């Protein structure tokens, strides 16, 4: 761990939070570490950071980094509204939202879409495990077709791809990555924070406890049977976090804890992130080949963010006083007179 001071004159430790209460090996923990690294390297001032989240294992993580910053763990699926309000009250805050796939794509889908439409200046990270971790493994709307949950039922619906819908709405920053790929996640977080407008970052983050990608389609050894048979009551196996490191343009086959696999394809230099249609294209192509395309899919640095569109002044609204906000006595009396 580095002891050198960053732009804000702080050590990396200043960006730590409370100890995680998530499962050992949870992808979310990796993301928390990437977050700490990114915020430290950016030199973000903790008191200007607002950590927002909904409800879920993922939404707990803001407690695990930058302890000295303000955080708001709201209600399930409604973080975009809280973030919108806070951003309007104080334009100077760095709004950093952390959500889950259930929080975003199930209960929160409407707010997620409307936040994007308004282009609220915030970073919106989806810790995407295709399941409801905190409520013990029901499918979320991003669960892959045919995936099997611990309890055995098969997901029979098309997954909602947060990146695809974000693009369809003309979101000004859309990226995807994998929790185990620090090399890619850290710079993407930095870019997202630097971006003025809504930056959606969908990070695939395996749930080591409940998300059983290939499920019963493969049958394992005696041991695996027994693990299952006991685990479904209350046992949570201990896992290491999955780490990957691969080159732009290449495809990487990642094996998850349960032996299942996902194929990650990292965008190469050839992809132009200013081209929305191209982004849509690579996602569709990827899906066709069973690849999850990672990297910065699309960015429009020129898009005007909500506070600017709404002509919110530079001085934070929260700092305005009677003088700025009330009619003068004269104005007031004249105005009332109009009602005579």
């Amino acid at each position, binding site marked *: 761990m580095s002891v050198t001071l960053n732009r804000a004159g702080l050590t990396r430790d200043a960006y730590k939070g409370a100890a995680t209460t998530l499962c050992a090996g949870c992808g979310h923990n990796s993301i928390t570490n990437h977050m700490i690294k990114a915020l430290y390297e950016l030199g973000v*001032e*903790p*008191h*200007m950071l*607002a*950590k*927002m989240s909904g409800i879920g294992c993922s939404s707990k993580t803001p*407690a695990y980094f*930058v302890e*000295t*910053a*303000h*955080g*708001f*763990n*709201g*209600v399930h699926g*409604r973080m*975009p*509204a*809280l*973030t*919108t*309000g*806070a*951003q*309007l*009250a*104080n334009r*100077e*805050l760095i709004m950093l939202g952390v959500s889950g796939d259930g929080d975003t794509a199930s209960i929160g889908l*409407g*707010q997620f879409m*409307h936040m994007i439409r308004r282009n609220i200046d915030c970073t919106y990270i989806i810790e995407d495990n295709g399941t409801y971790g905190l409520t013990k493994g029901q499918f979320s709307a991003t669960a892959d077709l045919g995936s099997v949950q611990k309890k055995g039922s098969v997901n029979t619906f098309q997954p909602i791809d947060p990146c695809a819908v974000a693009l369809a709405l003309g979101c000004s920053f859309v990226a995807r990555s994998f929790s185990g790929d620090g090399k890619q996640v850290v710079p993407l977080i930095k870019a997202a924070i630097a971006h003025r407008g809504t930056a959606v970052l969908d990070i695939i983050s395996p749930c080591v406890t409940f998300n059983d990608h290939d499920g019963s389609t493969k049958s394992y050894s005696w041991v695996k049977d027994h693990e299952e048979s006991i685990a479904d009551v209350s046992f949570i196996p201990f896992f290491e976090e999955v780490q990957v490191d691969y080159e732009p343009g290449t495809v990487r086959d990642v094996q998850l804890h349960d032996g299942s696999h996902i194929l990650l394809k990292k965008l190469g230099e050839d992809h132009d992130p200013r081209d929305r249609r191209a982004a849509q294209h690579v996602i569709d192509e990827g899906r066709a080949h069973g690849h999850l395309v990672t990297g910065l899919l699309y960015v429009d640095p020129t898009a005007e963010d909500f*506070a600017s569109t*709404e*002509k*919110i*002044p530079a001085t*934070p*609204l*929260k*700092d*305005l*006083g*009677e003088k*700025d*906000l*009330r*009619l003068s*006595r004269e*104005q*007031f*009396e004249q*105005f*009332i*007179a*109009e*009602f*005579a």
Partner: protein
Amino acid sequence: MTEPIVNNLTIQAATVNGSGSQTANLVLTRAIFHMGIPVAPKNVFPSNIEGLPTWYQLRITPQGHMARSDRVDILVAFNAATWREDLKTVRPGGVVIHEESYSTADARTDVIYYAVPFAKLAKAKIASDTLRKQLANMIYVGVVAGVLGIPWESLEHGVKRQFLAKPKAVQVNLDAIKVGLDHYQDNFAKQDAYRLERMTGAVEGKVLVEGNQAAALGALMGGVTVAAWYPITPSSSLCEYLIAYADRFRTDPKTGDKRIAVVQAEDELAAVGMAIGASWAGARAMTSTSGPGISLMAEFAGLAYYAEVPVVIFDIQRIGPSTGLPTRTSQGDVGFAYTLSHGDTKHIVLLPGSVEECYEFGRDAFDYADRFQTPVFVLSDLDLGMNLWMTPAFKYPEKQFDRGKVLSKEDLDRLAGEWGRYQDVDGDGVTYRTLPGTNHPAAGYFTRGSGHDEHAKYTEGAEVYARNMDRLNRKFETARGAMPAPVADEAAGSSIGLIAYGSTDAAVREARDRLAAAGRPVDYLRVRALPLSPDVAGFVQRHEIVYVVEQNRDGQMFDLIRLSLPAALVGKLRSIRHYNGQPIPAEAITEPLLQSEAVPA
């Protein structure tokens, strides 16, 4: 010919929604008000944009009664579809001004008819095809002016005031009124008893304002900087007025910057969420809605109560349940708003009883919210919010904002960073908060709707949890003492008392006048907020029987008051309820009271 009836009559204009009649009605109202005569308009409109029947009732009394009355003295029949029904509503000896073509065959003979060829007149006298239809309404203003004797300068004033922002429109409208006036004078001789005569002393210093205008102005003066809303009748106009006022008074002429953000959210969950997020970050934030929106805000209201985030929520009540009648009034959300959200949740509720209080409470709600770091509901209703009310001109606020217990960087330095977000240092249950952006390492804390200890750390500890819940109760009791006190009038020294709140006040005042006139005076206590003041028990204590009057079916305030009383007093309470969507008339109160032998003769 009978005794003249002066400045004491009710005009009912029956027209078609969307036909432009509303403009004519307002001109008429303002013209009469300009004569120094008290006016009390009630607009009864459908949940429809064009084509359904609508009624505008203009009540005129020397005393300035503001409640709805069922008696119609002068009917302006402008809707063929309802003509026969409307005719029935006129009192004997009343006046009926109607389109000539409506048949009066075997119609009532106990009323006086003025049959006017409105359509013909419009065709003949109004050039513009596009304007003919709506200006036709102005013609009836002229006829009414003729019948009642409204002076021209008052009509002029009415038109000018109505088209304040559109001077171009003034002349065409005046011309149309003239058409009606001339027609009356050339064709009719006065047959009825009704007259309007200039008055003095009744409306001086008074203005005509809608409750939603008043509330919007209140919020503006209260320093609101973030307002998130979702359109819904009868609440929409509140935020629409706020937008108009902000454009006028909160916009930097040079940069165009706005010292407020008014956001039309995608729904009410988002609207209240945005307001809560903004308050959390230090803005004075609000939302405005009606019943269905209140239901949708339930989850967030509980978060704000438990995480202790200020927020102001206006509920312009309409009659439910469910969609109910979106354009009819009610006081049906009182009980639900008071404990909105699951678990043990309770809220501060302000109950403005006049447009003046819509302004004052709309302004002070932000102080209460900041002081007690909790949601504050302002419960107005359609009658109060969307009708014009005569009111003393509003007063300029003398108090500064009360932002409550907020710790600045300096405070934290002084405390050497030693503080707990939910620590009750003052013993009043109200704790200190910091705002995001406060440049001190100890400023930051984690706000959550889940279990937290005095230092805002997550906990599942049973004792800590119960302790915090008890502290929230303590805070609520502190708030109880700080609410606007009930307004008592016990001058009558009667053994009978009335308790009411909100827009019901108008009917109660009139009812008390009538009861006093009938030799049966009653005392009156007007409740202005929840949690209830101890004064309520005192008032009940001092009377033998107390009637709680309200506009809902289930006697919601009746229940809340019973729960607040010592057992010995509960038996004194009676309930009077009115719930058909029409504003409560005085009769709804006088009749049960005069019947019940309980009232001493």
